[in-house]
């Protein structure tokens, strides 16, 4: 019996237990089995090398008008029995839940290509080898970061008869090289996620990070103020992340906490953002924790806000239907799209043709002699009369969710651009900037032609982004304060 089938059976067993112990209860069960391995390095050696294999079950019950959720990592029959017992007991004592949206009806879920077995079951040696190659490619610089592999299998069942299962895998590398200069260190970064571990070329990523670190040496302070910017994909990731959490969150929209107004032209016409959980290049997911099938959806269509994310509860409140974005623990926060793609220039479809995390995996050679990540970024830089090239953002936090004004810092490299050429490494800035304003009509001066898959340290998400050239970014502080 396959692992996937055993998870399906486990979910079905849980639903059957509920049926026998509380006839008439509405129940949904999710079973997740993950194998996460992460090889972490710092000061150019592996210092933390971890792996875990876990299976967890999650049960949501609605009985006599009351709802409760329970979870457990004890998944044998007696463990499942105990879970049902206590979740039923909790539901019966909980306050009434008049907003209960009901269970997802049976519906076919889409299929995705089979996972890459070498990624799903990668041995520690395979990750360590990539770390070795990254460190070697920095050619004497200090290196730090990680290489990880994740296998994620999920099964779902509910008492209406919906049943689904999926398996996905993702490999990620996220690391920096550090150039020493006086009493300071200058960092350069390289990141990539892919459904295939074989796409992660430690040497190429290490060379890119090292080139950026060397080009950052001697960074000087510039005054804060508004600058035109070219944001590399690693920085654009943060825009997508905050748009996903606070903007495209259907519950936040319904409650007036989001700027998004569906149907309104709120972005530059060059901006198209889709959520594609079925993209085989990322961590594919074919259904959500309520069993609703997932699909590719356009959230921003040529500058027009086109959709927001809903689970069944937020959809019912908003008078619409679930978009398949229910998340564990999402009843309070709301639904969030976890597979956002900002489409690169010239890509009207954005559909994947392979598992590769990088649209142009062979394009790296010769593009790492300096701070600019690749030819796509260089093309945007070439159009800037005076501005800044920004590699990465850090510690961004929302000052006001409605306007999505965010403060944060640059990290891992900033350079002055003059007359289309990078001229000077610059020290990090603090910024305070409304993200929708930065992406508004007329504010986007260019979208890169090359998108890459980018890892996240906190969630099982995978965004894809090209570089962006923006007319103005509000830097409100520098190292002096």
């Amino acid at each position, binding site marked *: 019996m396959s692992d996937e089938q055993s998870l399906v059976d486990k979910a079905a067993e849980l639903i059957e237990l509920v049926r026998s112990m509380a006839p008439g209860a509405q129940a949904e069960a999710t079973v997740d089995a993950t194998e996460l391995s*992460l*090889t*972490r390095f710092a000061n150019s*050696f*592996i*210092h933390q*090398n*971890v*792996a*875990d294999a*876990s*299976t967890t079950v999650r049960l949501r019950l609605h009985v006599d008008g009351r709802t*409760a*959720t*329970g*979870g457990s*990592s*004890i*998944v044998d029959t*007696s*463990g499942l029995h*105990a879970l049902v017992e206590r979740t039923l007991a909790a*539901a019966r*004592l*909980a*306050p*009434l*839940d008049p907003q209960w949206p009901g269970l997802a009806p049976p519906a076919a879920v889409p299929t995705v290509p089979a996972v890459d077995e070498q990624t799903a079951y990668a041995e*520690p040696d395979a990750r*360590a*080898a990539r770390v*070795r190659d990254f460190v070697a490619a920095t050619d004497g610089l*200090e290196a*730090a*970061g*990680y290489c990880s592999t994740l296998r994620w299998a999920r099964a779902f069942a509910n008492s209406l008869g919906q049943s689904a299962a999926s398996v996905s895998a993702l490999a990620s590398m996220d690391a920096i090289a550090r150039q020493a200069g006086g009493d300071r*260190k200058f960092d350069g970064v390289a990141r990539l996620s892919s459904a295939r571990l074989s796409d992660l070329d430690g040497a190429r990523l290490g060379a890119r990070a090292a080139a950026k670190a060397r080009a950052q040496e001697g960074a000087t302070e510039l005054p804060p103020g508004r600058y035109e910017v070219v944001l590399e994909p690693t920085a654009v990731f943060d825009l997508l992340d905050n748009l996903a959490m606070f903007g495209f969150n259907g519950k936040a929209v319904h409650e*007036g*906490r989001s700027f998004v107004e569906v149907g309104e032209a709120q972005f530059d016409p060059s901006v198209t953002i889709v959520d594609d959980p079925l993209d085989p290049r990322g961590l594919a997911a074919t259904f959500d924790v309520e069993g609703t099938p997932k699909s590719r959806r356009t959230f921003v269509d040529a500058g027009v806000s086109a959709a927001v994310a809903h689970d069944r*509860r937020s959809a019912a409140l908003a008078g619409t239907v679930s978009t398949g974005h229910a998340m564990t*623990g999402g009843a*309070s926060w709301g639904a969030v799209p976890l597979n956002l793609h900002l489409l690169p220039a010239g890509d009207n479809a954005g559909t994947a043709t392979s598992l590769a995390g990088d649209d142009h995996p062979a394009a790296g050679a010769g593009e790492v002699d300096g701070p600019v990540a690749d030819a796509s970024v260089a093309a945007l830089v070439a159009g800037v009369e005076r501005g800044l090239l920004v590699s990465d953002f850090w*510690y961004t*936090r929302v*000052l*006001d969710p*409605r*306007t999505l004004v965010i*403060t944060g*810092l640059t*990290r891992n490299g900033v350079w002055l651009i003059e007359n289309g050429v990078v001229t000077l490494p610059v020290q990090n800035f*603090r910024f*305070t900037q409304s993200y929708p304003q930065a992406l508004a009509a007329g504010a986007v001066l260019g979208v890169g032609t090359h998108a890459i898959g980018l890892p996240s*340290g*906190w969630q099982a998400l995978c965004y894809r982004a090209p570089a962006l050239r923006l007319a103005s970014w509000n830097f*409100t*502080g520098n*190292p*002096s*304060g």
Partner: protein
Amino acid sequence: MPDLDWHGRLGDVSEYGAAEAAVQAALDAGASYADARVMHRRTESMDARNGEIEELSQDEDLGIGVRALVGSSWGFFAVPDLSDAAVRSAGARAAAIAAASATVPGPAVARIPTTPASGSWSSPCEVDPLSVALSEKGDLLVGLTATMKAAGADQAEGSYQIWDTRKWFVSSEGHRIDQRIRECGAGIAATAVGDGETQRRSYPSYRGQYGTRGWELVTGLDLAAHAERIADEARALLSAPRCPSGVTTLILGSEQMALQIHESVGHAIELDRILGWEAAFAGTSWLDLRQLGTLRYGSELMNITIDPTIPGALGSFGFDDEGTPAAARDAVREGIWVGVLAGRDSAAVAGLDYGGSVRADGWARLPMVRMTNVGLEPGPHTLDEMIAATEDGVYMDINRSWSIDDKRLNFQFGCEIGWEIKNGKLGRMLRNPTYTGIGPQFWQSMDMLGREVTAWGTPNCGKGQPGQVGHTGHPAAAARFTGVRVGVTG
């Protein structure tokens, strides 16, 4: 220690036996040192909004994590299965992973010597929070959020969280420790939606107050007494004047001071950051070990301790996750940096003789340097005295946003509410108050410090890869700072 009473089935399983078998398997596979933690955690949380329950969740989690040292490299493996075969396999796999680390080896790993501890410890708990009836807890949140909604909040939220953690720790050096730590807390928040912006007021803090205590902590918050007030204040903020921009005297309330300590002191004194072990993600630190004992961090009013022994504070424990007994230590004394948060291996690298600040977020995560209770000793002033002594300034409290650079120097924090101070008196309410600064400059400008200390709990401290969420405590008092830039806008 009682059996695992939710699941009930595990009464015949020896948690110590499982940990010992895992450690032995790691040694048999070539490890020179190994330790193992069996952890069992029950959690419960409830969220209410606008008079209705949004989510009630109860979870149970059981597993073992094994750490093995082979040559100069660590390996870690974790499984949610305490069968003999599973724990032995976990020990062997931890050793195999450590062996793979040798592909990119570093200097030999040393650990400062320790006397292997044996013992049991439990956090204080008068009212078991998991034993309080769900109906009582639910009715509390429903009532509070209904009150705020009726008082004008567009979104009225209330929540509580409970953790009941038991862990058994064994090392190849002879440690044998079990602990039970019960934590809980709650909070309420009112959001008013205006024309193009939102305003939020919370009580008692941004996410609520948390501690290693029983439900008596929540009862003592008297949430009901503050529900209407924060709803009123959220709505009033929509029409309040903006916090002016400029450089002025700033008084921070104790809740915001807890955040200030957490971000600009607590993380900066983590030894793993100082040594570069977190360089690629959480970041490093502006602190240089060569300056330990001489560097001026803040004014002479600044006395910061690392103290996991504070009864009921959220960062308290009996032993850390390497088996080091809890002990208090100075981090900053009269403004001079004198101590760090350390583990046994990082302390050895730094040439220090103490660890004691290593913890893991669950059985599936590697123990790492984490804050315990990092906080201020009380000062000589009252908040009223600070306000009275301020001719022109701003008073801010209750954190709303927080951002700081990867060296823990350059910060910008926002609060939910502010008031102008004119001629020694509080004036108009101010909306969107923010302030920014550079850590040591800011702390050196602290010229008044309150004597009323609250041990605030932070249940959401993120660090590590894979990500770990830590629970930390921060004794804090109101304080006054001079020459601070406030009112940063987008």
